[in-house]
């Protein structure tokens, strides 16, 4: 250790620069490891939609048809049966990502969270039940939307299975907030929400990581940063639509059921096969007033292509960067070794041999690279969730890189010594 300190003191500025460059080298390895990992996640996320057809169900209940359908006493039950049959089908995946603003009273966020901010049609705050409400962006998502799009949280937890079920007189609603809310609300905060004119107490149970996107039929890359995400509620098969709650909140039940049936079907089946499969559901549930339309499959395919192209660019970039990093580190090592040749000569005079000096050079490189690895490891451990696998990966790559640099430093030292006529120099 003492010899390292002596070598360090020989040229403090130069050695500090060497340590700095080793630190950047180690940070770069971290970024490269994280990037390869992230790219796999992104490809995995879009691969769920690859080679699949996307269909959208659209109800035909408008004007007289709507009035006629909802005049039946069992209209809600029919819609519910239809929705549950879609969700339970094994022939396709039923995917609910419903864009529907919610009203929030005493909302703390700024104007960009308003539902129509981007289109310049913001609605004024309004009063309801002596409370002032604002229209805020919100998405109602089924559990498979999170899985299909690999949505991740920066803190908190996802909705539990029970959160998607609506019980009679339910008043609480768990909410997950987009990353832009991280400075506005905190976990456990309560929000007074009006959802389809029914009052709920929302509890913040999680925050999304920045730039989480989901595929929807309206927007193939919907960014959730400014959204309040709530579960797409559904009603159990045994749920009775003849109770006080339903009579008190008819709009909530009607709108919830309609939004539930206007979902997407994701499947490898052709349009004809999908139609056959839906005909069977039509017959068993008795709901026929809907049509199936092909959703924005081309846009989704473009996003898949974009992500794959990005991966290729990324790998080329990583390869080129790695070559540059190794090249730069080798040059820095060469300079550091050359700078210390005078000191090594003194060591030779003092009775050391060349092998001992090579060992010192190698150990010094290994020590510097191992020490600087601590900083990115701590960074990785503290900032990225569930990073144990990533940390193991990083440490193994770092160890490999450190050994490679150690070996290279010894070879460089040998080349430096070969060029110097040591005997002549020692003679003076």
């Amino acid at each position, binding site marked *: 250790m003492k010899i390292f300190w002596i070598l360090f003191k020989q040229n403090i500025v*130069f050695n500090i620069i060497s340590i700095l460059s080793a630190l950047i080298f180690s940070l770069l390895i971290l970024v490269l490891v994280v990037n390869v990992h*992230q790219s796999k996640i992104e490809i995995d996320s879009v691969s769920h939609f690859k080679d699949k057809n996307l269909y959208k169900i659209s109800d035909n209940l408008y004007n007289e048809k709507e009035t006629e359908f909802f005049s039946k006493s069992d209209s809600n039950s029919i819609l519910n049966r239809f929705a549950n049959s879609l969700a339970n089908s094994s022939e396709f995946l039923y995917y609910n990502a419903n864009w529907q603003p919610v009203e929030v009273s005493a909302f703390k966020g700024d104007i960009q969270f308003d539902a129509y901010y981007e289109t310049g049609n913001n609605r004024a705050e309004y009063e309801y039940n002596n409370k002032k409400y604002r229209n805020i962006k919100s998405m109602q998502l089924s559990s498979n939307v999170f899985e299909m799009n690999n949505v991740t949280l920066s803190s908190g937890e996802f909705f539990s299975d029970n959160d998607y079920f609506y019980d009679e007189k339910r008043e609480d609603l768990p909410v997950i907030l987009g990353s832009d809310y991280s400075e506005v609300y905190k976990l456990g905060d309560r929000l007074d929400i009006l959802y389809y004119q029914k009052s709920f107490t929302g509890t913040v149970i999680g925050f999304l990581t920045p730039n989480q996107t989901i595929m929807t039929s309206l927007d193939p890359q919907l*960014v959730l940063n400014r959204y309040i995400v709530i579960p797409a509620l559904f009603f159990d098969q045994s749920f009775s639509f003849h109770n006080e709650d339903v009579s008190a909140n008819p709009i909530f039940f009607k709108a919830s059921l309609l939004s539930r049936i206007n979902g997407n079907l994701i499947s490898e089946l052709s349009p004809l096969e999908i139609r056959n499969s839906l005909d069977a559901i039509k017959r068993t549930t008795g709901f026929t007033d809907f049509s199936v339309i092909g959703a924005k499959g*081309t846009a989704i395919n*473009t996003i898949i292509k974009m992500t794959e192209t990005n991966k290729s660019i990324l790998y080329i*970039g990583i390869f080129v960067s790695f070559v*540059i990093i190794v090249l730069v580190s080798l040059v820095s090592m060469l300079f550091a070794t050359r700078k210390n040749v005078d000191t090594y000569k003194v060591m030779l005079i003092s009775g050391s041999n060349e092998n001992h000096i090579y060992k010192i050079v190698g150990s010094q490189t290994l020590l510097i690279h191992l020490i600087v690895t601590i900083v990115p490891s701590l960074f990785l451990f503290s900032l990225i969730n569930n990073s144990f696998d990533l940390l193991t990966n990083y440490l193994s790559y770092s160890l490999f890189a450190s050994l490679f640099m150690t070996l290279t430093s010894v070879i460089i030292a040998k080349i430096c010594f070969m060029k110097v006529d040591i005997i002549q120099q020692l003679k003076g």
Partner: protein
Amino acid sequence: MALVCFNLICIGLLWASSYIDEINMINNGYKDKSSITFRVDNVTKLAPTRHKYILFQYDPEMPKIKHIVLNREIKLPPITKIIDYDINDLNQNFAIIGTEAELNDVPEGYRIIGYFNTPNSYLLNSEVWLISRNFDINHGREFTINAPNHDEKSIINQVFKDSQYNMINTEQRGSYLLFSNRLLSLVIQLCIVLTFIILVMISIVRISREKYMIRVMHLYGCTVGTIFRIVFSYILIPYLMLSALIIIMSLLFQTYIHPLWSWVWISQSIYIFGSITFCILIIITMQIVTTISQKGGKRF
């Protein structure tokens, strides 16, 4: 020589960074990360300016139909032309559309001259760009401005100087949203920092070799100014000349071989070369001061 090699690496990295930015911009509907979106309710005409820019005017209810204003020569996204037409000749109204765009969205009086050749941009693939000489506020009250020199704010102040505008904080789309893509930019920036450090190290090593020469000159009786001038002339001048050559080659590359949307990579290269020159000057000064102040030297 090593200095020049690392200068080349540095400028290559800056170019790569601009190239990735351009890909992201195309995937984001040809909106750069520095673009500004704003709303203007009352404007009759756009004030002239010498700055280069592309202005998108649209109705937020129909954002896929965009009226385009091009100021001076602006690089457009890749287009497969179906009619050979000079885009800068604005005597006729013309349209460029995405491969998935609705033909019905092209108004009468506009000639389709080509399709966007942007297979990875779902936004451009569904857009209709209408380019004409006439500016009309009824085409839409929402605007997005993009400038290759990233001076959007000052352009808005000049072009819309008589109008009130409200900024809209929009979110980026396309590959800008991919975390891996942002990390790649970080990798490139870290590589640039690392290259800069190495450039400083090379300068220190290169100049430290001159300490014997400096001492000889000092012992010979040269003044500090003379020593500085001599060392400056044979270390810095070749570096400056080769750097200038690299910049000229970059300018030719940008103009004739592979033009990128932004010239920022060249201005950043000049800035980095300038910083290295400044570092070399400091290192030369420090080397001269430390060498001539060492004991044992005697000035005759």
